[in-house]
């Protein structure tokens, strides 16, 4: 770690005792970064900024929010109507959650396309999956807090998933509730945990970044950097690019916050929770729809496992799979740019995930195309669920063996300088540096 070249004597005095300036200089200023990163590499820093935004708006909201079944809904309405700028703060928090998921989903699919999960970045990737799980838990807990109809029934349906576990399922659900149904005890603990988890996320994000800075960023070509010709310092090149991306994001985000703040939400959540009346259509927030579709797609028993338990297992497995992805895809080539077959199936997976989302938003028994009654959403859901697992469990291991990758360039710099350099093209060159 090179010492900071600060001349200010106070800075030097501090840095001698606590090397924060050296650290920042190293990690944010000179940190060598591949020079060919495209805009898909903006989403990591964007996610970080949104996380901070969620924490800041969340802390402010909690100054006005009352976690009690009799007051929660009204306290949120008071935030909307009476608290100074309360509407703005809540809308930023509400839409921030959606933005967070859009950003993180793009971030993840970036990783899938460019093989960022492959050695030596397996742990970096796994920490990312852990962040996704924590985000999902946090968002679920947060959605319960305004105590509307969707809050209540979402909480009921999701906590009941645990009752699928044989023998200990029921006691676990009672334990989660602190009672015999979702009630005040539940709301209180959900608030406490919703407050806590984002800080746990911050902790995991720090580890994620430590892992990132150990081997540096992957890049669109997916080969290791070979020297200074391939790299540029993070500042000012990527700080500026990240800030530009932030600007674009803020424009889009503002469109939602100011012009369509409830577009992504469900109107039923503006009806106070009623434990004796289930709304006719329960749908989770949009970012859970694909997973909800997988949950509902298992309608058959296998052996002694009933459909309810299998659905829950499939839903968790759909994310659990991502943890072992680095070992399912054994192809030595990272970037899909050089993987002619994988590149196509990647897009099939993207479409499959969108279809799962659509299935999750619809009633299982409704026909997919009006007039074609035999083909219902449940069938589409089963097919797309099957494809999802097929992609990860069968296709990826198979492609690692049968796919012949295109020739890789010798360095990031080489194709840019247009040297042609055919001699250096080595098909399926192992990605590890010697």
């Amino acid at each position, binding site marked *: 770690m090179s010492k900071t070249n600060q001349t200010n004597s106070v800075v030097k005095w501090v840095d001698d005792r606590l090397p924060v300036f050296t650290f920042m200089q190293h990690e944010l200023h000179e940190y060598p970064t591949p020079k060919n990163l495209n805009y898909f590499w903006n989403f990591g820093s964007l996610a970080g900024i949104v996380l901070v935004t969620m924490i800041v708006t969340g802390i402010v909201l909690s100054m006005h929010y009352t976690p009690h079944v009799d007051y929660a809904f009204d306290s949120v309405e008071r935030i909307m109507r009476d608290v100074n700028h309360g509407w703005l703060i809540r809308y930023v928090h509400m839409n921030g959650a959606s933005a967070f998921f859009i950003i993180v989903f793009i971030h993840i699919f970036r990783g899938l396309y460019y093989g960022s999960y492959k050695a030596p970045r397996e742990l970096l990737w796994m920490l990312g999956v852990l962040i996704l799980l924590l985000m999902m838990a946090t968002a679920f807990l947060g959605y319960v807090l305004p105590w509307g109809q969707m809050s209540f029934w979402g909480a009921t349906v999701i*906590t009941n998933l645990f009752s699928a576990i044989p023998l200990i399922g029921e006691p676990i659900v009672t334990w989660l509730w602190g009672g*015999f149904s979702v009630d005040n*005890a539940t709301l209180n603990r959900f608030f406490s945990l919703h407050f806590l988890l984002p800080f746990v996320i911050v902790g995991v994000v720090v580890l994620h970044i430590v892992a990132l800075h150990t081997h540096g960023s992957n890049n669109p070509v997916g080969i290791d950097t070979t020297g200074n010709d391939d790299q540029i310092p993070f500042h000012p090149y990527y700080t500026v690019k990240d800030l530009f991306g932030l600007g674009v994001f803020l424009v889009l985000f503002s469109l939602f916050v100011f012009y369509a703040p409830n577009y992504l939400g469900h109107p039923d959540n503006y009806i106070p929770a009623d434990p004796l009346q289930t709304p006719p259509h329960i749908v989770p927030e949009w970012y859970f729809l694909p997973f909800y579709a997988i949950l509902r797609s298992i*309608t058959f028993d296998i052996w002694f496992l*009933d459909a309810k338990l299998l659905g829950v297992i499939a839903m968790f497995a759909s994310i659990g799979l991502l943890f072992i992805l680095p070992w399912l895809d054994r192809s030595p080539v990272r970037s899909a740019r050089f993987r002619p077959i994988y590149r196509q199936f990647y897009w099939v997976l993207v479409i499959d995930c969108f279809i799962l989302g659509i299935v999750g938003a619809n009633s299982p028994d409704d026909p997919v195309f009006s007039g074609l009654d035999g083909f219902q959403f449940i069938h589409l859901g089963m097919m797309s669920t099957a494809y999802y697992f097929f992609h990860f469990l069968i296709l990826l291991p198979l492609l690692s063996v049968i796919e012949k990758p295109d020739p890789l360039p010798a360095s990031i710099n080489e194709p840019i300088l247009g040297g042609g350099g055919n001699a250096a093209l080595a098909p399926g060159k192992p990605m590890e540096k010697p």
Partner: protein
Amino acid sequence: MATTGEETFESQPQEGETRRDFLTLATGAFGAFGVGAAAWPLIDQMNPAADTLAASTTEVNLEPIQEGQRVVIKWRGKPVFITRRSEAQIEEARKVPISALVDPEKDEDRVQKPEWLIVVGVCTHLGCIPLGSKQGEKRGEYQGWFCPCHGSHYDTSGRIRKGPAPTNLPIPKYTFLSDKLVRVG
């Protein structure tokens, strides 16, 4: 005790290590027990508190309920469906062959008095409230209740007949305090 000691020495000749191993194990076990004992209150605090448990009986006056009518009362924060069944409804529930049921249970075993069906109104799939208690609500294919969330159909005995729910609507503990008064819980 002494013999046990000797046997141990035979299998593991180094006396000092054996004792140390034992001490380490014993200390470890004791420590684990201590950690467990300290963690338990932190885990168990999330279970229903004394006041929640205490609030868990409800008395219901059956007087105003007409034949064929269904009412919903709240017990432990969740709905309980009380139905005063008509002869036809009882008949309907009793004529089904047991083998046709997903979760086989005789109607006779689900009621104390055939006229009064008392079930917890929470779908055994994922906890929604089935429709059918109010006038005009969809009752499903078996004239009992219909859960709108994922389409479970229950019959006039509250038994699951079709759909993803695995078991019948549960029967809460209840006692008839008199002909016209029942205590649930």
